[in-house]
């Protein structure tokens, strides 16, 4: 193959002006036009060893789909992606490409990596605009699978099970499906409509979605096993960690889950048109440095009456787990970063939070995570005056689903323990994947688990006769 000339600069993905976009919750990225996508696709070297594919948790055939985009075969490109990943529009937007495919891109060694994420989102959106092709459903296997939760792990698992002819019922605890994609990721990053259309597609393929159904409460895992041949638990990490310091329960102190659920899931930004309120004052402090912290901060700047939003993080910016792009977007939107700053207590008056006492930190020796451990600088305490605090310091698996199911073992952080090969728990026929086995992870890793579990479930169902 003739060597291609490397084009160092990527075609920028059109974005809305920060001054405009902070006024609403609509998507920040406008995405590639067909022309821009084809131009960007040309930059791919079509490397035979494809390190990008190696770096993708679900091994999307990246050079192949990019080639199809270059040739103007957009629908084909989307279908090529869907051989491995049924949610290109979602993953193209929320995957941390810089540490996965784009991080490994050969072009990236000398210039900007190929914008794989933006191309993936483009292909997915394009296919959706012309209508999805339904995959052929084989003869019904007669086997029934219950799926707990309707987030990314469950969606991926359901899609594969349907392809193999199994009957799929998804049980969702909340009143809308989508899991973290709808209660945790704001619309300016991932429009709800995209999640809705993916779920609609699943339903058209035969999946049944039951809302308002809390497995572990409405029915137990044992009861599901009486009705179904197998169960997949993809209930996510729905248990927020709290900063156990003085003043935690003052009014105005939220978990990221509560804050985001109120606003992006219940629509509190439309209050009183909708009934769910959220109280936010003029100054908001967000504790944490991950993607959720960025989502909270960027949600807060969009709320009426909010003047200043701070991100308070105990390490320095280079240790932040959030995606560089998210930090960049947050800064563009006016979020103020207080790094090397650790909250010590929440101060309040008459039961309401009025500030966060913080201490300045410096970086010491590396800790077990390999990052330099932040240590407090004595005497550097100060009070950051705010009227709202949101804690975004991570979350763990929610125990409700498997409470009382003694056969299913759980680890130190409450994560469900599974066989790493099959993702089956110690209770035969019950599988689990995504954040519920990992604590906090990513959409794509969860989807990878969902597919892996689907394969094991299929093998399990075919080897058992009921």
């Amino acid at each position, binding site marked *: 193959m003739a060597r291609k000339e490397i084009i160092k600069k990527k075609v920028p993905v059109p974005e809305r002006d920060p001054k405009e976009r902070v006024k609403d919750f609509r998507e920040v990225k406008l995405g590639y036009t067909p022309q821009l996508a084809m131009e960007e696709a040309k930059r791919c070297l079509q490397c035979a060893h494809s390190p990008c594919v190696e770096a993708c948790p679900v091994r999307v055939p990246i050079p192949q789909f990019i080639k199809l985009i270059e040739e103007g075969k957009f629908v084909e490109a989307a279908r090529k992606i869907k051989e491995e990943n049924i949610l290109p529009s979602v993953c193209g937007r929320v995957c941390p490409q810089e540490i996965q495919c784009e991080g490994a891109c050969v072009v990236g060694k000398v210039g900007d990596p190929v914008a794989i994420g933006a191309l993936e989102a483009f292909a997915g959106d394009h296919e959706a605009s012309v209508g999805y092709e339904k995959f052929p459903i084989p003869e019904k296997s007669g086997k029934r699978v219950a799926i707990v939760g309707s987030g990314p792990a469950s969606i991926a698992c359901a899609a594969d099970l349907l392809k193999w002819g199994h009957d799929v019922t998804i049980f969702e*605890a909340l009143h809308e499906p989508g899991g973290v994609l709808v209660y945790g990721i704001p619309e300016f990053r991932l429009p709800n409509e995209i999640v809705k259309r993916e779920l609609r597609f699943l339903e058209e393929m035969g999946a049944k979605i039951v809302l308002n*159904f809390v497995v572990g*409460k*409405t029915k137990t895992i044992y009861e599901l096993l009486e009705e179904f041949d197998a169960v997949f638990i993809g209930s996510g990490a729905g248990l*927020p960690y709290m900063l156990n310091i003085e003043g935690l329960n003052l*009014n*105005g102190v939220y978990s990221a889950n509560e804050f985001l659920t109120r606003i992006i899931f219940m629509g509190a930004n439309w209050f*009183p048109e909708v*009934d769910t309120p959220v109280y936010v004052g003029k100054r908001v402090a967000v504790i944490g440095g991950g993607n959720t912290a960025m989502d909270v901060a960027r949600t807060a700047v969009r709320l009426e009456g909010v003047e200043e939003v701070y991100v308070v993080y105990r390490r320095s910016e280079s240790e932040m787990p959030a995606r560089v792009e998210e930090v960049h977007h947050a800064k563009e939107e006016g979020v103020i970063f207080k790094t090397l700053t650790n909250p010590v207590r929440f101060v309040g008056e008459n*039961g309401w939070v009025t500030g966060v006492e913080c201490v300045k930190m410096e970086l010491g020796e590396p800790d077990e995570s390999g990052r330099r451990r932040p240590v407090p600088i004595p005497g550097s305490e100060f009070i950051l005056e705010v009227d709202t605090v949101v804690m975004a310091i991570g979350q763990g698996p929610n125990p409700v689903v498997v409470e009382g199911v003694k056969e299913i073992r759980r680890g130190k952080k409450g994560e469900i323990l599974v066989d790493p090969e099959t993702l089956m728990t110690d209770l035969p026929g019950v599988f689990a994947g995504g954040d519920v086995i990992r604590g906090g992870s990513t959409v794509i890793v969860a989807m990878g688990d969902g597919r892996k579990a689907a394969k094991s479930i299929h093998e399990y169902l075919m080897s058992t006769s009921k």
Partner: protein
Amino acid sequence: MYRIVGKKELAENVDEFVIEAPEIARKAKPGQFVIVRVTARGERIPLTIADKDPEQGTITLMVQRVGKSTYHMSCFEEGNALKDVVGPLGKPTHLEKWGHVVAVGGGLGLAPIHHICQGVKEYGNELTVIMGFRSRELVFWEEKMEILADRVIVTTNDGSYGMKGLVTDALLNLIESGTKIDMVICAGPVPMMKAVADLTRPYGIPTVASLNPIMVDGTGMCGACRVTVGGEVKFACVDGPEFDAHQVDFDELMNRLRMFKELEKKAMEEFQRKHCGCRRG
């Protein structure tokens, strides 16, 4: 959709709803609650399951009109349907044969109390119910409690019915008369539950309170309902809603219930201004 198959006005501002929810009815245990969303734009509100009929597939909820959502729900009639009902949530009441149990309920607290009392009797306990109201016209469910309990004491603040005074006055009478009490279970307004806990503490009578904090998801996901119990932060929706009343920080709970007061008032005003076609509109 969850159809309303029965509705009754129990007292001024208090309605009883019987709702078709077969799966919840089958599983509901004393002490548990549901989360209701009245309409597609509604908020998620926790309501205790006051009664259930697994054969008919129905649950009974009690609703006091205090804000927009509850006013809106009170506009719904038999045959209408609620948008969402999910449950049963929370830990069931811990029940055992204690001996003599005194259940203390005020206002809406009678919803959990009724269901809990059913359980208390199933375990073969002697049961005294103390139910408190402001005045005679607000009294409800006395007969329902009479069927369950060995003894029912009704108190009214103004003395217009039953004993004049507060539920704690009745409870104190019982204690001082030398009646052996092995367990007190209370539910109602926070000041009432606090007063009950303060009263039984010096006597060392085990006391449980069914708490009513603000909730969103009701499954431990958001932490809106966090309460301090024995110095530890608990989520009422999954760790409760019942806790050792002697350990609960009631002042904090009271404060947290105020969190959205201003906004709730605004929503209520807006609702009353706009809403028509409802008898209370």
